[in-house]
């Protein structure tokens, strides 16, 4: 069964017809050409498909596209549309990723963490990012980068 839906995607209004069983990830990738969210586990276990929906991270591989009707969706493509963000710059400086497949998910999860808890300690960082799996890095540089983001914020270096 097809259903008409519309949402704001990275600042632009999108209207389209989707099957009732289509996942948001499939619609983003296959219909709308948004490739930063990745298919990895298909069960919401790994966080590679993470997107922001009304400012909250969701697992787009298990969310039905029809559930996203009337929402505002931001993917990495939209998140960086005014250039590299501070989150990305600090991840870059720390060589935080290796194969990079999990990076879009980590970047958006970090954004959510820092909006909800601007000064997390190391344990809170680990807790917040525990839903994003990375098989390459051992997480050390990712965690250290987020700690530095917090430090930069504290020092008021970030506008």
């Amino acid at each position: 069964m097809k259903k008409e839906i519309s949402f704001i995607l990275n600042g632009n209004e999108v209207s389209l017809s989707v099957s009732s069983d289509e996942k948001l990830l499939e619609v983003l990738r296959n219909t709308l050409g948004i490739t930063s969210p990745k298919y990895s586990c298909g069960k919401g276990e790994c966080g590679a498909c993470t997107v922001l929906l009304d400012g909250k991270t969701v697992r787009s591989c298990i969310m039905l596209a029809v559930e996203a009707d009337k929402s505002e969706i931001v993917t990495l493509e939209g998140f960086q549309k005014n250039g590299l963000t501070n989150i990305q710059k600090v991840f870059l400086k720390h060589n935080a990723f290796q194969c990079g497949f999990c990076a879009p998910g980590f970047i958006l999860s970090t954004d959510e963490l820092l909006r909800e808890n601007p000064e997390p300690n190391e344990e809170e960082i680990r807790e917040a990012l525990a839903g994003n799996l990375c098989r390459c890095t051992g997480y050390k540089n990712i965690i250290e980068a987020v700690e530095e983001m917090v430090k930069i914020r504290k020092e008021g270096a970030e506008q």
Partner: protein
Amino acid sequence: MKKLNVVGHDAVRIDLKEKITGTAKYTDDFAFGPNLLHMSVLSSPHAHAEIMGIDTSEAEKLPGVRAVATGKDFPQKIGLYLKDKSILPVDRVRYIGEQVAVVIATSKKIADEGCRRIKVDYKVLPSIHNQMKAMDADAVLIHPNLGDYEVVPWLNPQPGRNISHIRKIRKGDTEKGFEEADFVLEDEYAVPHVVHAALEPHITVALYDYNERFTFWNSTQSPHTQRNMIAEALKIPHQNVRVVAGSVGGGFGGKAGISMEALGVVCRKVPGFPVKLRWSREEEFYNSSQRQGLQAQIKIGVTKEGKITALKHKLYWDVGASAEYGNNVVNATGFSATGPYYIPNVSIDSLAVYTNNPPCAAYRGFGYSEFHFGLESILDSVAKHIKMDPVEFRRKNAIKVGDKVAYGVPMNPSGMHECIDRVAEAIEWGKEVESKDPDKVIAKGFACAWKAPAMPANAGSSVFIKFSEDASINVELSGMEIGQGLHTTMAKFAAEELGLPLEKVRVELPDTDRSPYEWQTVASHETWALGNAVILAAREAKERIFDVVHRAYFLEKEFLYLEDAKVKNELDPTFQLPLKDFVISGIETEHHTWIGGPITGSGSYIPEFTNAMVDPETGQGGHPNVHYTVGAGAVTIELDKKTGVIRVLHMAEAFDAGKAINPDLAKDQIVGGFVQGLGTALYEEVHFDKDGKILNPNFTDYKIPTTLDVPYKMDPILVEVPQPDGPFGARGISEHTMIPVMPAVANAVANAVGLRIRDIPLTAEKIALRLNSKEFKPEY
């Protein structure tokens, strides 16, 4: 040695910006337009059965289905070292999940439905899921035609048995060695199957065009090897197969050789249409080649002074239903199962045993993690039996430069003792720490490791370098950037050799039509082998540059050098010719003619000293490995005696990189490899039911480490004893970093509570049950 400007300095990875901006295109990110078709695979529900017939008629009738294929259409044998599997099975399935038939349709949903409509008539056969039982004389034969399969000359299949390969080592006289020992210990250790769990699943998009050419877009570690295997299997010209590599979202050996990509050839039935096959996570568990299971029997003799006199090591590998690639894991570990120690008398039998479990092949560490678990565990036990500190015991026996390894070749330069000392220092070996919680114990565990690249004796690498107008260069190669930092490393070699800043170097992913040959990105051999090819290519370009300058300015080439993107002259500091002035256009003479032309360079490398043809009964007489990389690792754990939960508080690992090209990236390999190893130490295990069905093919039931599992303190340490034939002295370390983890944690548990775990992983449940059982007796 001349001062290095790029090599040996830290840098941001050259591929990272495209990865953190989502610019990097993984294979599933390529757009193929509205003609893209989708493939689904019908899997076998039986672990072992004869295929009596397949009826595909109902699937073919389904609207949207464009093609159906079975083993009748694609029976060709395929395999890296032993052709023991077909593209699609013809008469027999050998494990649950084996691909029996495929359907190509206009949507994935229709392709799935097509698969459901295929009827397969199976005659179920007895199945074997344990390698020890598979060796019984009356065991059902999994490959009755083993003797007919094409095989490389250095493997020893045993037709009439479920044994795909045996590697034997006989050095000295082990019986005499055990007689000389003051103490002899025998034990058995087991390692289960685990999976790579790369975040990106396997994927291929295949197109057969009306020009009779195949193009594959693959997530792969082996573009050229895949091209070769497909061309050979189908008996078509190599130039009619093209493999284009996307970014790879994690490999760890799982994307080496060929697995599901072979199914792409079915696209020949739908010319002109690209066909996509992407594994689901569950298919990934069954069909991306797991890590072998191992049952190891070890006997070791030592003197009371702590010298190892003899080692007998039997390795029984469960390679699953196919050993086309996995046989080399068995082979490589057969040569090396002494670990990094000098042992005068050695007997090793390493056996590849077929079972009806999923096929196993390369996984980071290539078998070395598995045998080190038993070996490094028994070394701790034996040291404690003779009342010697386990670290001191390792120091006494650690291999030195020039010591003969088990197959009789002298050990390459390496810093085994320095690695031991640096790790012992970092972990504060010998300093006892008490937990504040009376239910918990804090203890330390130590292990050493070594590994050699396992590859054919003539594995080749090649590189092209070309300049652009602004003196930037493209380094063209087919070594795969799979996250390990290969592009950055190769860019640095070229930059250093050509006197360029790193920013001037671009390295791209390969396309077998355009990029020079590379055997495979495996074995942690690329820094060394491909690095040597990059340097040869850079030197050829440099020679051409100097030649042009010599002809234009009559300067002697021997005094010219490259620095700051300029040609400089040792004899005349005022001579500074920017490369950008001539590397494309050439140099203009006073007569307005031009000398030179676009500068290029090429380089090819194979190790010319290796020889895989050893005596099958003794393993002597060849030179099967290029060199070993050595290292050590240690952990401090806190063990909860009531719950069995282990928390790793601190880890230290040191590896001898020869020369760390990018020290921070090398340390990142240590950290990443440690954490991947930690998963296998603490909880990773593929659970099968009695029929070979996987019970945990997902990340909820098969856990991999998260941010919460990572030690707060991690000390990656680099040792640099140069490899004489390595680029700037470098050798690989990436796989090695996983190897010490399982035994180091197991040794820490034994040190903490006297519980010796002989079957990894060290799950909380296992520890709590054994520690709190009535039969528990502390041991070494």
